[in-house]
């Protein structure tokens, strides 16, 4: 194993990206970060959904677009125009991978379905990632991230018993669907080198998200009941929770995994107190007792944390060897910098520079490409069409005259 002397893992792989909003563009960003040549098919006639955003550049690109579509190129093709569909078909013939997240049937209606494209490109890997997949009773259902958070079980396994359905304020399902599909595409590319055969990956974002709770689905299948919702607690040790600290919306997570940590917690909490009943209370001596009396212990912990800054709680417990972490917010991740470097700065001509998400993977033998800014609409039409279709200047001029490259 030598250090980073190889090119990016997916160099030489051509990806044609028909994605919109987030799930498919997130998937193709992953492929681009790993070195694939990702070309987005876009059109001024049918722009990507106007995603509500606090920032929109004069060219129509919004903040999330800039982060999700870096490292890609853009061709502008009107797919409603017959000549446009023909160019898209020819690009797909030159591609290794097509990724799309239209509703079921849309690509086929455009004459760009897998069955059509495979005739001229039998090695094509065609990944569909609609909400529920292209078959089954819900194939025509339309869905967004929040629909899938509800439908795939996330909301009902998060939170404590009796809580209303509880969501996460991010695009969880787009990430989960995008990662699963990215994995499936890479695995299929590797297999294709042996078999020469392409395939249609009809991924359903719903199924990807259901896999995230599939162990609990298996529990319910056998027990014919739902598992208990655990909130912040553990079924193996106690106490564990997120405790309110002094100030507005300040919290500290504490996780006591064994007896030594329990005694350490009690010692820290009772420092300077007139009486020190927690450590000596026989009811709390064993883990089963602490689980039985979890509510009472939580109240006692919160009575202590409520008077302290969250950073103070974290520091005191950390010194005593008790796992504790204050709740960090996005502004702290950004301003303090993440120790891991989850985000990095990228040149972005529209704004000078911006923070963008790093790929959370390290390879000892493959260099990853440096991030380049998200493309303007149609910025690379000419270069990609000429390059992928191997066109001469006059061939390009002919295509451009048809009025479909907009």
């Amino acid at each position, binding site marked *: 194993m030598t250090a980073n002397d190889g090119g990016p893992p997916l160099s030489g792989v051509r990806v044609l990206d028909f994605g919109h909003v987030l799930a498919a563009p997130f998937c193709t960003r992953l492929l681009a970060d790993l070195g694939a040549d990702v070309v987005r098919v876009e059109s001024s006639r049918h722009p990507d959904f106007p995603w509500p955003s606090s920032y929109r550049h004069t060219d129509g690109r919004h903040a999330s677009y800039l982060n999700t579509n870096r490292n890609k190129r853009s061709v502008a093709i009107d797919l409603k125009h017959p000549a446009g569909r023909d160019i898209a078909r020819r690009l797909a013939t030159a591609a290794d991978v097509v990724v799309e997240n239209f509703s079921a049937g849309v690509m086929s209606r455009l004459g760009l379905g897998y069955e059509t494209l495979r005739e001229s490109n039998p090695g094509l890997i065609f990944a569909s990632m609609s909400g529920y997949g292209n078959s089954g009773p819900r194939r025509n259902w339309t869905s967004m991230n929040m629909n899938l958070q*509800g439908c795939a079980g996330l909301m009902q396994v998060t939170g404590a018993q009796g809580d209303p359905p509880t969501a996460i*304020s991010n695009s969880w399902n787009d990430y989960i669907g995008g990662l699963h599909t990215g994995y499936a595409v890479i695995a299929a*590319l590797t297999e294709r080198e042996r078999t020469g055969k392409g395939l249609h990956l009809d991924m359903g974002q719903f199924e990807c998200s259901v896999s995230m709770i599939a*162990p609990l689905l298996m*529990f319910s299948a056998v027990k014919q009941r739902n598992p208990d919702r655990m909130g912040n607690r553990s079924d193996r040790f106690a106490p564990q929770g997120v405790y309110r600290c002094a100030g507005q919306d300040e919290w500290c*997570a504490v996780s006591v995994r064994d007896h030594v940590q329990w005694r350490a917690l009690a010692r820290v909490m009772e420092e300077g107190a007139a009486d020190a009943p927690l450590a000596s209370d026989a009811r709390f001596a064993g883990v089963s007792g602490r689980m039985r009396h979890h509510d009472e212990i939580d109240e006692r912990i919160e009575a202590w944390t409520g008077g302290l800054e969250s950073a103070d709680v974290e520091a005191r417990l950390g010194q005593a060897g008790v796992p504790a972490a204050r709740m*960090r917010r996005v*502004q702290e991740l950004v301003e303090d910098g993440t120790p891991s470097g989850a985000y990095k700065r990228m040149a972005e001509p529209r704004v000078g520079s911006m923070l963008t998400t790093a790929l959370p993977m390290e390879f000892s033998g493959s260099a990853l490409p440096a991030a380049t800014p998200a493309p303007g609409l149609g910025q690379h039409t000419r270069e990609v069409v000429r390059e992928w279709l191997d066109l001469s200047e006059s061939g390009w001029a002919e295509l451009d005259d048809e009025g479909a490259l907009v």
Partner: protein
Amino acid sequence: MRILDFGHLAGAYAARLLAESGHDVVRIDAPGGDAVRRTGPFLGDAADPEQGAFHHFLNAGKRSVSLDLKSPAGWQVFLALVRTADAVVTSRPLPMDHDAAKTGLVWTDVEEEADELCAYARSGLLSLTGQRDGRPTLLGGHMIYLATGIQAAVATAAALHVLQGTGQGQRVRVSMQDCLETFVEQAMVEYTFSGTRTERRGNRGTITAISGALPCKDGHWVVSQINRPGRWEKFMEWVRDPELMADPSLASDDAQREKKDFIMDRVLAWSRQFTKSEIVEEGQRRRFPSSPVSTPLDLTQDPQLMARGYLTEEDDPRFGRIPFPRGAVARVRGQEMRPAPTLGEHNAEVLAELGYSEAERRELLETGAV
């Protein structure tokens, strides 16, 4: 290709995904069962390493070899296994020289956090999960490990792609803390561009105004709609709420963002009169992204999962005929997934494949190295 799986929850899901693509995945189990097997809840009545729900899902499609890596003989078997492998996925550091072990090997280190809740708090994700103004909450089902596992599967697959193309092996590192922080990216982008702080919103969406889980007669349903031209008017044709209809300015993005709580509160009052299926089906008929809110028990009978073959039925010797989640990738690849192996189920078989004679196999099994 052959993959050795020595992963905790994230590593085990990465290796399961490799099995879903048809690779031969050998799970290295500790002699008494490891932490994955001991992760609850349990399908039976006891906290038994053969009955863990996580073991049953994460180890399906794999073979199990139980090895005592502390015994010299067990370690030698492990090294012999490594020499036959294309990739190793591990969540534990192992005392070995990867370069010397085998040329052309992908070695994936998955750095998993021992304290799930603390890792979640540090990552920033805790501040985005839970009820508004209420206590922030961990995502259920240890799902953040599985989400990390997909990242590890992507990284391993990318390195296997290089291996197949060039014969070059390499070391891959995926850290759970890094992965979790990247899932905050949307809030990061909003904050860095405009200073907007993304908050917990219970079960309401953050991006679009019309978005959230709402109570109905028999549970909850979700509606979530990006505002496009004409959609507000169509939504009003369906909801027919006089207070919302009285304010035509609500058709604009800005007004919707400003008044999203008012909008959703009015929609909530309306949706209470319908059952889940009534309102979801009508919503879909009108092309509004709507869906039921499902529990894990609901999902065991989900018509979409059954029709697509994500859920199959398996005869389990212990639990009878049960719905079995084949997996998102296995389904699309038509890959059969064997139920999770019992501890050391494939010891003799794998030793034979490695070329150990019958006498050597007997000795390894009797001394407890295997």
